[in-house]
């Protein structure tokens, strides 16, 4: 097999910066997590013939659970990760980080991203999330080595969510709470979620909202043909819907010290959303009576992971987007090892950023926000 002589292309660029990755995925195994599940889920899972009956770790390759194949039709390889077919092992995390030039990382569950597609019960996601928190704490996370965790919040089950927040209260390994934006009904600005935000604010834990692929096939309407359609639109819509809900329902006014982060929809959607929402608000302010300023100003108070950064866009346009969102609101995120991950070079190469701004985005904003 042909191999490049340069095992680390652009290493010289990567070496210039200390990099904190705001969104990396640990490809945890159902089997490993099940060891930490409470009954009856542990026995249910162990007796389910998972794997043996063909429901593999990566169950999207042939019969997609959402349109398309995350391997992009066999094109994707990950030398330093087991993605997409096999479970990850803790020792490979560092290897993966080094392969893309990351010094510290925040791990988000891979499997919970599909959990939002579970509509039959509100128990399964909670069982998984609780077990995941224990498994990662016990076997994977290593804050002294720069491997931090975000705890998945099964927000459909408030009681379980509060238990998880209580559980991680004094756990140094967990630096934030993760809300998967796909599938949240009612949307996450609804008052029913207030206790979760109140508790996050109290614990000084940022609320990280991460889009996901669950339900993508029918995210608004059924009938899309390809993943290029559903992934382009659905990932965006899941984040946009929650941003609009949080802002209009006044979550930033209710919980002014809560740090809010959105991951994995790039940057360019934000100016469009800000300007459209502001335009609406000028005509209908009575529908968002808690707001003390225009919605777009709350949106720029939030933080955003950069991935998948639209680096092929015209630099002038991208620069304007960065200006509107603000470099103090952006943090580098890889989404590694997923198919469309971005290396720190996506930020380091941008011609319109100063060295100071690159450092802000590549590490300083995350360091401050997550108190690393």
């Amino acid at each position, binding site marked *: 097999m042909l191999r490049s002589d340069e095992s680390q292309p652009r290493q010289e660029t990567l070496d210039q910066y200390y990099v904190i990755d705001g969104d990396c995925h640990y490809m945890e195994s159902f089997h490993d997590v099940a060891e930490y599940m409470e009954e009856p889920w542990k026995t249910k899972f162990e007796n389910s013939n998972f794997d043996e009956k063909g429901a593999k770790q990566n169950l999207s390759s042939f019969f997609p659970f959402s349109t398309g194949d995350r391997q992009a039709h066999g094109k994707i390889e990950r030398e330093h990760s087991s993605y997409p077919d096999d479970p990850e092992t803790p020792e490979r995390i560092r290897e993966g980080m080094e392969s893309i030039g990351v010094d510290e990382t925040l791990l988000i569950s891979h499997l919970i991203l599909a959990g939002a597609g579970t509509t039959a019960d509100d128990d399964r996601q909670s069982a998984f999330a609780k077990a995941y928190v224990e498994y990662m704490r016990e076997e994977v996370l290593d804050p002294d080595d720069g491997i931090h965790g975000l705890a998945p919040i099964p927000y459909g089950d408030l009681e379980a969510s509060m238990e998880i927040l209580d559980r991680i209260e004094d756990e140094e390994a967990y630096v934030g709470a993760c809300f998967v934006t796909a599938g949240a009904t009612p949307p996450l600005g609804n*008052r*029913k979620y*207030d*206790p979760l*935000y*109140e508790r996050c604010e109290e614990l000084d834990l940022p609320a990280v909202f991460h889009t996901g692929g669950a339900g993508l096939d029918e995210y608004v309407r059924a009938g899309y043909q390809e993943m290029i359609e559903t992934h382009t639109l659905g990932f965006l819509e899941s984040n946009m819907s929650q941003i609009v809900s949080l802002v209009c*329902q*006044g979550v930033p*006014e*209710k919980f002014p010290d809560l740090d809010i982060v959105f991951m994995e929809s790039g940057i360019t959607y934000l100016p469009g959303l800000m300007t459209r929402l502001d335009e609406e*608000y*000028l*005509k*209908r*302010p*009575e529908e968002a*009576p*808690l707001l003390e300023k*225009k919605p777009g100003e709350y949106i720029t108070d939030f933080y955003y992971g950069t991935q998948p950064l639209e680096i092929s866009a015209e630099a002038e346009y991208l620069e304007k987007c960065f200006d509107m969102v603000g470099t103090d609101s952006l943090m580098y995120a890889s989404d590694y090892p997923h198919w469309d991950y971005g290396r720190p070079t996506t930020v380091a190469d941008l011609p319109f950023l100063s060295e100071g701004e690159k450092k802000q985005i590549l590490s300083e904003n995350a360091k401050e926000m997550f108190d690393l």
Partner: protein
Amino acid sequence: MSDADLIEVKSEVEFEDGDRELVDVNGAEVGVLRVDGEFHAVRNRCLHDCGPIAEGAVGKKLVGEFVEPGKRVEKDYDDDEPIISCPWHGWSYDLETGEQLADDDIVLPTYDVVVEDGVVYVDGSSS
């Protein structure tokens, strides 16, 4: 303010609650309204798309109060904040200050209204 700045509208006794009159103030059309007994005067040109704001609905500002986490936001109308809304697209302004309710950097010109000897005037120097 001098008498030369006063633009006559009409007599106070004829100016009933809910009435509106348009007058020319230094070349600008100004709407004079009587709401709950109080006189207000605003430029009749919405800052959004030049709609006839002075002809729009008059109401009160809806305000919300966050009571406690998980509870409904309590919403009510503030009797002390009369507002006027443009009939074209609904841009609303505080009748007293002229501030757009969604953005107080946008300010509709307002004018002082004075009553002298039973006659209502707009003070053309007051915007």
